[in-house]
C-alpha cells in the first residue's frame, strides 16, 4: 500500500507531467534536428516560430468558438491545428525564399545562417507580440480531465490521487502518433529517403538526381507541422505566453545535442531525458520519501534538490556533461 501510494503521488506530480513535457520537447527538438541535418544550421528562431504557430492556432480556435463549432470533450484547438500548419508552412517557406535561400546559393558559413535565423527570430517575435501581446492566453476548452484525483481515489481506494489532464493525455498520444508517422515517412517514402540521402551526403544525393530545393521545401513543411503541434500542445498544457516559447529554445537544443544533432531518434530520447531530469531535480520528494522510508525516518524538509527557478541550470548541466564527455551525443550525431 505504502509503495503504491508513493508510486501514485510520484506519477501525479512528476512522471505524468514530465512525460507530457518531454513529448512537447521531443516534437520541438525533432524540428531542430531536421533543420540541422538538411539545412545544416542551428535554427534559433525555432522557439519564436513555435509561438507564432500557436498564435495562429489560437486565432483559429477563437474563431471556431465564436461560430459555436467544437469537438467536445476534446479542445477546439485541435480542430484549428491544420489552419496553424497552413499559416506556418507559408511563413517558413516565405522566410526560406526571402532569407535563407540566398545564403544557400552563396554557400555562406553556418554562422551566417544562424545570424539570419536571429533576424527571423526578431521579426517573428515582433509579429507574435503584435497579435498576442505579452500576457498569458489560455485557450484550453472541452473536458479538463480524463480522470480527476477524486475519481481516481474513489476507484482505487488509495490515500493518494492521480489525475490525468486532457491536455496531457492528448499530448502524449499525439506525440506518439507523430513520431511513428515521421519515422514511417523518413524510412519508407521516396521523399523521406531523399531527405536522408541529402542529409547523409549532399554531393552523392545531388549526383543521383535529388532536387535539393525540393528536399529543403519538404523539410520546412515537416518542421511547420512539428512546431505547430509542439507549440499547441505546450500551450494547451501550460497556457500561452510568448516568452516561455523563447525559453524552450534551451531545453530543445539540449535535447537535440544530447541525442546527437541530426539524429531524429536521438532528439526524442534526449527530450525525455531533459524533461525527466528537469522535473526530477526540481521535484519535492518529501511525500514520496515519506511513504517509502520506514516509520520515524520521514524527512523534515522538502527534499527538493534544486528550486524550480533553476530548471535551466539542470538543462545546462546536461548540456555541459554531454559537451565534456560525449560531444557527438548519445546516438552519434554529426560533430564538426
Amino acid at each position: 500500500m505504502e509503495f503504491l501510494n508513493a508510486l501514485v503521488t510520484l506519477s501525479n506530480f512528476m512522471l505524468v507531467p514530465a512525460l507530457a513535457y518531454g513529448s512537447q520537447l521531443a516534437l520541438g527538438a525533432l524540428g531542430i534536428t531536421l533543420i540541422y541535418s538538411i539545412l545544416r544550421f542551428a535554427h534559433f528562431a525555432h522557439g519564436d516560430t513555435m509561438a507564432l504557430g500557436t498564435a495562429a492556432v489560437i486565432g483559429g480556435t477563437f474563431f471556431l468558438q465564436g461560430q459555436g463549432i467544437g469537438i467536445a470533450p476534446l479542445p477546439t484547438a485541435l480542430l484549428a491545428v491544420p489552419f496553424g500548419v497552413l499559416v506556418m508552412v507559408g511563413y517558413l517557406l516565405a522566410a526560406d525564399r526571402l532569407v535563407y535561400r540566398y545564403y544557400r546559393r552563396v554557400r555562406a558559413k553556418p554562422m551566417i545562417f544562424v545570424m539570419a535565423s536571429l533576424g527571423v527570430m526578431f521579426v517573428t517575435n515582433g509579429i507574435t507580440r503584435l497579435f498576442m501581446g505579452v500576457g498569458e492566453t489560455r485557450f484550453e476548452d472541452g473536458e479538463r480531465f480524463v480522470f480527476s484525483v477524486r475519481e481516481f481515489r474513489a476507484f482505487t481506494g488509495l490515500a493518494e490521487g492521480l489525475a490525468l489532464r486532457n491536455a496531457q493525455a492528448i499530448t502524449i498520444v499525439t506525440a506518439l502518433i507523430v513520431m511513428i508517422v515521421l519515422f514511417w515517412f523518413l524510412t519508407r517514402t521516396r521523399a523521406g529517403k531523399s531527405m536522408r540521402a541529402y542529409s547523409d551526403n549532399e554531393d552523392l544525393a545531388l549526383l543521383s538526381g535529388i532536387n535539393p530545393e525540393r528536399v529543403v521545401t519538404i523539410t520546412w513543411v515537416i518542421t511547420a507541422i512539428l512546431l505547430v503541434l509542439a507549440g499547441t500542445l505546450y500551450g494547451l498544457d501550460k497556457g500561452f505566453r510568448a516568452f516561455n516559447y523563447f525559453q524552450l529554445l534551451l531545453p530543445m537544443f539540449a535535447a537535440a545535442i544530447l541525442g546527437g544533432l541530426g539524429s531524429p531518434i536521438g532528439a526524442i530520447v534526449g527530450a525525455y531525458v531533459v524533461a525527466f531530469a528537469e522535473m526530477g531535480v526540481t521535484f519535492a520528494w518529501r511525500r514520496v520519501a515519506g511513504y517509502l522510508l520506514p516509520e520515524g525516518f520521514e524527512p523534515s524538509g522538502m527534499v527538493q534538490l534544486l528550486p524550480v527557478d533553476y530548471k535551466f541550470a539542470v538543462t545546462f548541466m546536461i548540456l555541459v556533461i554531454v559537451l565534456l564527455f560525449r560531444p557527438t551525443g548519445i546516438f552519434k550525431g554529426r560533430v564538426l
Partner: protein
Amino acid sequence: MTARGFGLFALMGLVLLGVGALQSWQLAITILNMSLISAIMALGVNMQWGYAGLFNVGVMGFTAIGGLAVVLVAQPPVPEAWAAGGMGALLGLLLGVASILAAVVVYKRLPKGRLRALAMVAVLVAGYFITSAVFGPATQAIEAVNPASEGYLGGLGLPVVLAWPVGALFAGGVAWMVGKVSLGLRSDYLAIATLGISEIVIAVLKFEGWMSRGVNNVTGIDRPVVRPVDLQTESWLQALAETLGWEVQQTASVVSGLGYAALFTLVLGLLIWLSERAWTSPWGRMMRAIRDNEVSARAMGKDVTQRHLAVFILGSAVCGLAGAMMVSMDGQLTPGSYEPLRYTFLIWVMVIVGGSGNNWGAVLGGFVVWFLWVQVEPAGRWFMELATAGMADGSDLKDHLLGSASYMRLLTMGVALLLMLRFAPRGLIPER
C-alpha cells in the same frame, strides 16, 4: 577611421543634437549615455565575432553579472546579516567549489571505467548534501534579517567606480568556465552554451536573495556622479539655469547626465584605443588569420582553442564592464528587467549594422541602433495611429493595434538585421 566613418559619426551627433533641440535635452543625454554603454557592449561582442568569429548569445548574462559586481562592491555591508549567516554562506560556497574540485580530482586520478563514473557521482552527491546542509540554513537566516529593506549580505562599501573592473573580472570568470567547456567543439555549441549560462545567471540573480535581494531589487546604489537632486542646491547651477533660461531641475539632470557621458566616453575611448592597438598588432593579425582560415592557422602552429578562449574571455569582460557601468548609472540592480532580446540580441544587431570586425563600426552601431530602439516606439505609435485613423474610436481592433505599437521595434530591428546581413554584410563602417 575613414572620411566615411567621420561623416557617419558627425551625422549621428547632429541627430542627437536635433533630439535635444526638438524633443528635450534630457532625452538626448539619456540616449547618449545609454548609447555609450551599448557601444561598449558592442565593442565586446565585436572582439568575439569580428576578431575571432565566436558567436556569443549570452551577452545578457555577462552584463548582468557585471551589474551584480556593483552591488557586491559598492553597497554598504549589512552587519546583522553577516552575523546571522555570513560565514555559513561563504563556507557553503567553499564546500560547493570543493566538492566540484574533488570530483575533478577523482576524474583525473582514477582509470577510465565504471568505477570512476560511480566514484564521481558519489563525490558529487555527498558534496551536494554537505553543501546544502551548511548553505541552506545560513542563507535563510540572512534573508530573514530585516527583509523589507535588507535581507542580504550587502557589499564591501567601496567606491562604486572600483566595481567596474570587478564586473569585468566576474564576467571574464564566467566566460572562462563556459569557454573551457564549449570552445574547440562545433561553432554553434558555444552559442547554445552561452544562451544557457545567461539564463542561469539571471536565475541566480533572481533567486539568491541573500546575495542580490533577488526580485526585490537593490536600489539606491552609490553613484559615481553627483545626483541631480544634490546639484539643484548649488549656486553655480542655479546661475547656469538662469543664463540658459531652463528650469533648475532640468539643468541639474542635464549636467549630471553630462558627467556620466564624460566618464563613459573616457572608458570607451580607452577601450577603443586598446582594441585598435590590438587589431594592428601581431596578435590581431594572428586572430584574423585564425578567423579566416582555422586550418591553416593550426598548421602554422597556433593553438586555436586557447586563442579563442582568450578572446572570448576578453570580450565577455568588456560586456561585464558595460553591465557594471549601466547599473551604477541607474543606481539600482533589477534582476527582473534583464531580457535576452534587449540585452543580447539587440547588441548583435548593433554589431552587424555597425560593421563587424571594425571597432569604430561597432561603436557607431551602438549609437544608431540604440537611437532607433528608443525612437521607433513613438514612431510606431504614430504609424499605428495613422493606420487606425479610419477606424471607429473605441473599437477593440483599434485599441489592440495601438496597444501593441511598442512591439513594432522588435519587428523593425529584425528587418534591419536581415537587410544589413543580406545587402551590406560588412556594415556601415566595413572592416579594413
